[in-house]
Every structure is written in structure tokens, then in C-alpha cells.
């Protein structure tokens, strides 16, 4: 099967077997129909088992599939009358970001998103969907325009992250991302964001401050790519699968954390198997969320967005002050130490005494 992922191998092996039997049957005139039917049944069963609950690492591979639909695919499939716009008016037209005007069920909206390339040449032109500052500023310009003309904004998130390079740093990568976060928070129009593939780090979030954030079923979203996390934590980027499991990157996890509001269903095997199916489901979700948001005033929309992000975060409230806590731990460790010292025949205490207190300036 074209574009098969490693974990899908058993399935394609089985399909291969069926095909061999079929050609054999056709060539020899032998009857394998019973055998074939049995294998096909097994194939179906395996397919169901396999795709019913993909592991986070498997979802990561589906999300990164080279045939996975991109922002432009979804714009074409979900909207009508798309007019593409270009440039940030400051420096360049970053092709890692695409956007413009379109209609959703006849309603004019601004669409903008990260754009991965379809092949190597396209990928080089689009920096593999990793924007430079001019890309984020291009997106901001489109969104400011939407805000001016009271048009809803729909963003598509699909990037491994902002472009890591000297040119990007020179032109203020941090500032460009930060400004998008602040400006998106302040817009008085509905903003719906959809993570369609990989949502990696600040480069993803720079298009992600919406009233509603949706994710496709197999999309992933995280503070750092699983590969990056693996290389930092375990000094081994090949442990990305392991990191993917630990980092809670799936749509289901993020729904539980209330980081996203809704999940868009994908066909079995992933969005690349059936773009029309995925687009239809996405369109329905976008429309229903947009209907709700269009009923709100600009002030309500801003407040809605603020309160959504304001409440994200998990922490505890300590009962003691830090000083009290220190005291208890000190007492604790003193008690531990004295008992240890007693056990070790007083060795620990002599060691300590060798370094006079006054020496620790």
C-alpha cells in the first residue's frame, strides 16, 4: 500500500498474501475462495484492532504522514471562493504560511495556516512549514485585516515549530511569536484554530490563540517535538516514540486538559486515506462552532478567549510557607542525620566538623 507506516506492516503483509492467492487462483484456475474469504475476514479484524486505539507514538507517525492533507488541501475542500494573499509588508512573503479570504457556507472568513510542502522542492521553498518572523507577521497582518472588517478567523496549525536559524533570530523570531499571542488575545472577532497535523511549540501557538481550538483525531500538539524532548531528556532523539507516550500529545489528552474544545473525526487509518470525509467532518464542526461564536459581541469574544487561556495550568496550594517548610525539613534531616551518625559510629559528624562554619563565606 502506498504511504504505509511501519506499524501498518502486518496489515499490508496480509493484503499482499490475499493478492498472491488471487493471482494464483486466476492463473491456475484453482479455487482459493474459502482461504481468501478467511484472510479477508482476518484483515478486517486486524484493521479494526489496529486503528481503534492508536498509541500516541503511532498517532505521531500518522500526523507526520507525507500524504497527510495540508492547510491548502483543507482550504480547498472546506471553503469556497478562496483568494490567496501574500506578504508581511515588512520583509518578505514567507511560504511556510498561507492564507487569504474564503467563504464558509457563504460567510466570508479569513483563513491562515502553516503550509508544509508536498514534495522536496516544495518543502524547501516552504521551509518544511516552519515560519520565519515574516511568516508570523504575514499571518498577523491577515488577522488584523479580519479584525478590521469584522471577519471571523480560522487558522490551521501544522508545523514542527518556528524555523530555527540565524536569519530568523536576527529578525526577531521571539518578538514575532510573542506579538501574535498578544494580538490574537485582543481581537474582537471569532477565532477558531484547528491543529491538522503536528502542533509543535511556540511556532504552532503563534496561530493558536482562539476561542475554540480543535484537533483532528490523529493530530498532536506539544511544547516541544517528541524528538526534541527525547534528545534533551535522554540525549537520544531516536527515543521520540517513548517521549510521545510520556508527553500527552494526543487530541484526547488535550481535551481532558481543557486545552482544546473539540475533536474532528478522521477516517480509519488517518486523514490521508480520505480527504473528503475528513473535510466534511471538519466543515460541520467549524460551522457549528462559528454559529455559536457569531452570536457573541466583540467584548464577549475577547473575554471568552481570555478566560479559556486564563484557567489553563495545574498546580498545588501549599499549606506552609517556604520558611516553615525549610524548618521542618531541617529538623527532619537533623533527626535523620543524628540517627544515621549514631548508626555509622559518629563518622558523619566528624566529617562535618572538619569544615568550620566560618569558612563558608
Amino acid at each position, binding site marked *: 500500500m502506498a504511504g504505509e507506516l511501519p506499524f501498518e506492516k502486518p496489515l499490508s503483509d496480509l493484503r499482499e498474501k490475499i493478492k498472491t492467492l488471487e493471482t494464483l487462483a486466476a492463473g491456475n484456475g484453482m479455487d482459493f475462495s474459502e482461504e481468501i474469504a478467511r484472510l479477508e475476514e482476518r484483515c478486517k479484524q486486524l484493521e479494526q484492532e489496529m486503528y481503534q486505539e492508536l498509541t500516541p507514538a503511532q498517532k505521531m507517525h500518522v500526523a507526520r504522514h507525507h500524504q497527510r492533507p495540508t492547510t491548502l488541501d483543507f482550504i480547498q475542500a472546506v471553503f469556497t471562493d478562496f483568494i490567496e494573499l501574500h506578504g508581511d509588508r515588512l520583509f518578505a512573503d514567507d511560504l511556510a504560511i498561507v492564507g487569504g479570504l474564503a467563504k464558509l457556507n457563504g460567510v466570508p472568513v479569513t483563513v491562515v495556516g502553516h503550509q508544509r510542502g508536498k514534495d522536496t522542492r516544495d518543502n524547501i521553498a516552504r521551509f518544511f512549514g516552519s515560519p520565519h518572523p515574516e511568516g508570523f507577521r504575514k499571518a498577523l497582518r491577515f488577522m488584523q485585516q479580519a479584525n478590521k472588517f469584522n471577519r471571523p478567523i480560522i487558522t490551521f496549525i501544522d508545523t514542527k515549530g*518556528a524555523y*530555527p*536559524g*540565524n536569519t*530568523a*533570530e536576527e529578525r*526577531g*523570531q*521571539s*518578538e514575532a*511569536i*510573542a*506579538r501574535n*499571542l*498578544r494580538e490574537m*488575545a*485582543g481581537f474582537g472577532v471569532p477565532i477558531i484554530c484547528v491543529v491538522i497535523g503536528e502542533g509543535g*511549540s*511556540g511556532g504552532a*501557538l503563534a496561530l*493558536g*490563540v482562539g476561542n475554540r481550538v480543535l484537533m483532528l483525531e490523529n493530530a498532536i*500538539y*506539544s*511544547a*516541544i517535538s517528541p524528538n*526534541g*524532548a527525547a534528545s*534533551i*531528556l535522554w540525549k537520544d532523539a531516536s527515543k521520540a516514540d517513548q517521549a510521545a507516550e*510520556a*508527553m*500527552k*500529545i494526543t487530541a484526547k*489528552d*488535550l481535551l481532558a*486538559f481543557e*486545552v482544546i474544545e473539540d475533536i474532528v473525526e478522521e477516517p480509519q487509518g488517518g486523514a490521508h486515506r480520505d480527504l473528503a470525509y475528513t473535510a466534511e467532518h471538519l466543515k460541520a464542526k467549524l460551522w457549528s462552532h462559528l454559529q455559536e461564536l457569531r452570536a457573541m459581541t466583540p467584548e464577549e469574544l475577547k473575554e471568552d*478567549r*481570555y478566560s479559556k*487561556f*486564563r484557567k*489553563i*495550568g*495545574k*498546580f*498545588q*496550594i*501549599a*499549606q506552609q*510557607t*517556604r520558611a516553615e517548610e*525549610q524548618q521542618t*525539613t531541617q529538623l527532619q534531616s537533623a533527626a535523620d542525620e543524628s540517627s544515621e551518625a549514631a548508626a555509622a559510629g559518629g563518622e558523619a559528624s566528624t566529617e562535618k566538623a572538619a*569544615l*568550620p562554619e*566560618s*569558612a*563558608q*563565606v
Partner: protein
Amino acid sequence: MQIKDLFTKKKYATVPSERPKRDIPEGLMNKCTRCGTIQYSKELEKNLKVCSSCGYHFRLSAWERIAMTLDEGQLTEYDTELVSEDPLGFPGYASKLEQQLAKNPNLREAVVTGEGTIGGLPVVVAVMSFDFFSGSMGSVVGEKITRAVEAALDKRLPLIIFSTSGGARMQESILSLMQMAKTSAALSKLHEAGGLFISVFTDPTMGGVSASFASLGDYNLAEPGALVGFAGRIVIEQTIRQKLPDNFQTAEFNLQHGQLDMVVHRNDMKHMLTKLLDMHTAGEGLSNGG
């Protein structure tokens, strides 16, 4: 004896000394990280932890910075009770947090927030500490910064944030990432209300902190030599396989590329902050006609 033996180095056995370096008490002297000059710790403290020889600005903990920046070093601290938890059940996070707490007796997280005065003018401040978990931003850091912004907004006080951070705290993954949006959204409110925010980058400020609140100051300042940027040097070198300039991502590099208003020596920082604050309070109460 052969002639080449003349050139071989003689090998000596090293006998460990009976009294290993007990003579110089630990912490009395300090070696500069950059130029290697050895100086008295007390002298270094007096010089605000700036190397007298090369001007290297040593990294400061939050409390050291508070002591040298706020009047009388006085801070009425906010939100002291917020502590991190392990929301993802991330392998090793809980024990790493405990380590960080044990190593930093005065800190509960990578940021200290509160209010005080600078040059007699009241301010809300947030001061980050790199020694706690590399200053990484998790839920608590995001929440404390957001609450500080909200306090500045409610009390109509100027806000000053001293940043230092390695970036997002990946052990909190998506929740950590969302703190970027949360803090920036709060700053959006402050911005709209006409509130003053001065951001001071200190060494190093990278990743998610640099790409959110730290870059959103009305005035962006940095200490000399501070590393400020989004992606780290190693990541960039690995991705584009290009040699980067030596001064890459330093405060001076950022100033040159228009990302900062000024680079301010630590000795002048308090004075500069006072001057900026004064620009926003002086003349208040005067009617238009004067």
C-alpha cells in the same frame, strides 16, 4: 639508551597530598566564568557580581536581584503558596522538582513576584531565577506572572519583569506551552489599559519565555552579554549546519538587530529603571494648560 629515549617524557607517580586544599576556604574566592580572573567573593558581591576585570555579569538568583534592585531590598511577595505538581505523570518530574526545592531553600519555583518601590516609585515586579529548574516555565511560573500582570492592572502600577529561562518546562508539555498564551493574553489587557511594562532580559532568556511575555515590554532592556533568543545555538547549528557568529544571540547582537531598546550595565540598571518609571509618573496631576 637509545637516542629517542631522550625525548620521551618521564613518568612520575602522583602522590596525593595529605592535606588537600583545605587552606583556601570554599566560597572565599571566585573565578570569573568568562576571563578566569580570580577575585574575592566579597569584592564581587560589592561589585553587584560583575567581574572587575572583564565586566562579565554573573547570573543572579531572584533574591540577589531583588536585594540590589528594590529599595532597601524590600519586597511584599505575592503568591508564595503556589507549588508545582506533576499533571502529566511525566517520568522523573516529581523527583526532579524535589531536587530543585532542596537545592534552592528560598525558592518554590523559578519566579518570585511581588511589589515594592524602585527609586521611591511603587512597582509590581516578577524576577525569575535560573538556578531553579533552569528558569523553565511551567504552570506555576505562568500563573505567578499572570497574577503579577493582573495586580499591576488592578493597582494601576508599572510592571517590571526580569526574565531568565531555558524555555518551556517540557515535563508539563502542553500546559507549559499554554502559559505563553496565558501570560501574553494578560499583557494584552495591560497594554490596552495603557499600563507600563518594562521587560529586562538577563542571561539567558530563551525559548518560550523569550517568545512570550519577555518580548512584550513597552521597553525591552537587557544586561550586557545576556543570551537572548528563541532557538538555541546547538539546535540551529544542527539544523542549518552553519557556523554562527561568536556574539550570536547576545544582548549586543539583539540591540544591533533592533530587538532591544538598550543594553544596561548592572551598575546602572536601578538608575535606568528609576528614570523610565519617572518618565511615566512625572507631570502627573498637572492640568493641560500647566
